[in-house]
């Protein structure tokens, strides 16, 4: 685990991710606390895609994958999942830090419809967990399919633009990948946005199940 951490969390990645969150919390204005979640989710999706795109592709660009072809597929898959988990955990901690930084820099106030700040944080946390899970796996899978990190990032960005838009909201509604950000924040009883997050989990799991085949074919 320690070695995987050293491989997937080099200093430059930590530095740009932390800078991204600090800058985001400084420049993204929020008035009410319930806006923090929707200010964090879409940018975190793109940060995750960039962060996780090289999870396996670094093995290809360094030619280590040629040696790894001799290893058991199970070991290789386990290593990729471990790497995704390490990066996901790091990004999740960063999201929590970002949530706190919004309070520090923007000093938002509680809107009357907000029933509980804790519940609001837990909801946001849950949504971010799914976002990081989905975009991490997606970017890694696309990078592996193209055998190129930049293609993985680029194609993830296209999906991000398509879904994180008014058009995407109209087209997919509650099934949008960003359903949490597009939900009616003043209607706390409406939980249909969970469909979108459920869809993210399903797609993520399918991509995970396809991983052995992708590693065999493209790894």
């Amino acid at each position: 685990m320690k070695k995987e951490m050293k491989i997937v969390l080099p200093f430059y990645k930590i530095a740009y991710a932390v800078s991204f969150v600090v800058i985001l919390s400084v420049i993204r204005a929020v008035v009410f606390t319930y806006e923090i979640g929707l200010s964090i989710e879409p940018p975190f999706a793109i940060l995750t895609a960039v962060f996780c795109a090289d999870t396996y592709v670094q093995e290809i660009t360094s030619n280590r994958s040629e040696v790894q072809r001799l290893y058991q597929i199970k070991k290789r898959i386990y290593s990729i999942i471990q790497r995704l988990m390490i990066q996901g955990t790091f990004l999740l901690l960063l999201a929590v830090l970002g949530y706190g930084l919004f309070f520090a820099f923007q000093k938002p106030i509680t809107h009357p419809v907000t029933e509980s700040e804790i519940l609001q944080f837990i909801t946001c946390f849950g949504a971010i967990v799914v976002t990081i899970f989905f975009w991490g796996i997606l970017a890694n899978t696309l990078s592996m399919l193209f055998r190129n990190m930049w293609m993985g990032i680029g194609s993830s960005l296209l999906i991000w633009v398509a879904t994180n838009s008014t058009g995407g909201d109209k087209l997919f509604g509650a099934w949008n990948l960003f359903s949490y950000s597009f939900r009616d924040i003043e209607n706390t009883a409406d939980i249909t946005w969970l469909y979108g997050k459920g869809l993210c989990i399903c797609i993520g799991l399918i991509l995970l199940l396809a991983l052995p085949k992708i590693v065999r074919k493209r790894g």
Partner: protein
Amino acid sequence: MSIHIEDLTVRFKNSVTAIDHADLDIPNGIFGLLGENGAGKTTLMRVLTTVLKPTNGMVTLDGILYSEGNYEKIQRKIGYLPQEIELYPNLTVQECLEYMGDLAGVPKAECRKRIDYYLKKTSLIEHRKKKMKQLSGGMKRRVGLVQALLNEPEFLIVDEPTTGLDPEERIRIRNLLVDFSENRTVLFSTHVVEDLAATCNQLAIMHKGRFLYAGSMKNLTEEAQGKIWICKVPDERKAREVEQKYRITSKQYVEGGLQLRVISEIQPELECMSIPATLEDAYIYVTNQYE
């Protein structure tokens, strides 16, 4: 451990034929694979490591046929050092080898023992705590060699391990390969003739996807005996004339003109004398004949 290759063809999607109906037998011990850049050496190695599936033909390793169902069995017997490999720059030598050993399925305790043994053998023991990115090119290559040996492979494949190294480091790598060839088959690919002259008895010459020669080093040099000449010409103009007619392998300014090393079936019509052929002469002679 022996490898048998029969009628092997590898054709890429862009219609380039990298290996063209090649036949070869690789016996136990260190076996050299010689050829210019683009001859198909790396493609052959990628087939042998199961990275690449051949378009046609058959390969067997100790009688085990290269087929989807046998790949796992074959892969366990192979150690591979690709031409260009960048091992984990942020890990120390020890960590990097432990990590790769773990991925290769070597039990932890056994892996540590083997790392100690091979680090001592490769004179890297005092560098084990250094990060990979702090090592010199030669040291990285040696670590690469150790990673290829961690699963105690019966068939070790090394692709141009001496390219870009200084002479001392090249000698070190060559000697290590000879040491590690005991009780196993080592396929040593290179385009540097002197690397093979110093390590192998058996070799194959690849050229444009075909084997032009496979056999002993001695027989190869014998093929070129009596066909290598040292000629003397008075000036550059005459040297250029000779170059038009014969294959020149070296040209050197000497007192009173130029000395040329000429490959020719018959004695050139110049002031010249026959000299014993070296492996390099023989290699040039064989490839020249094909062209």
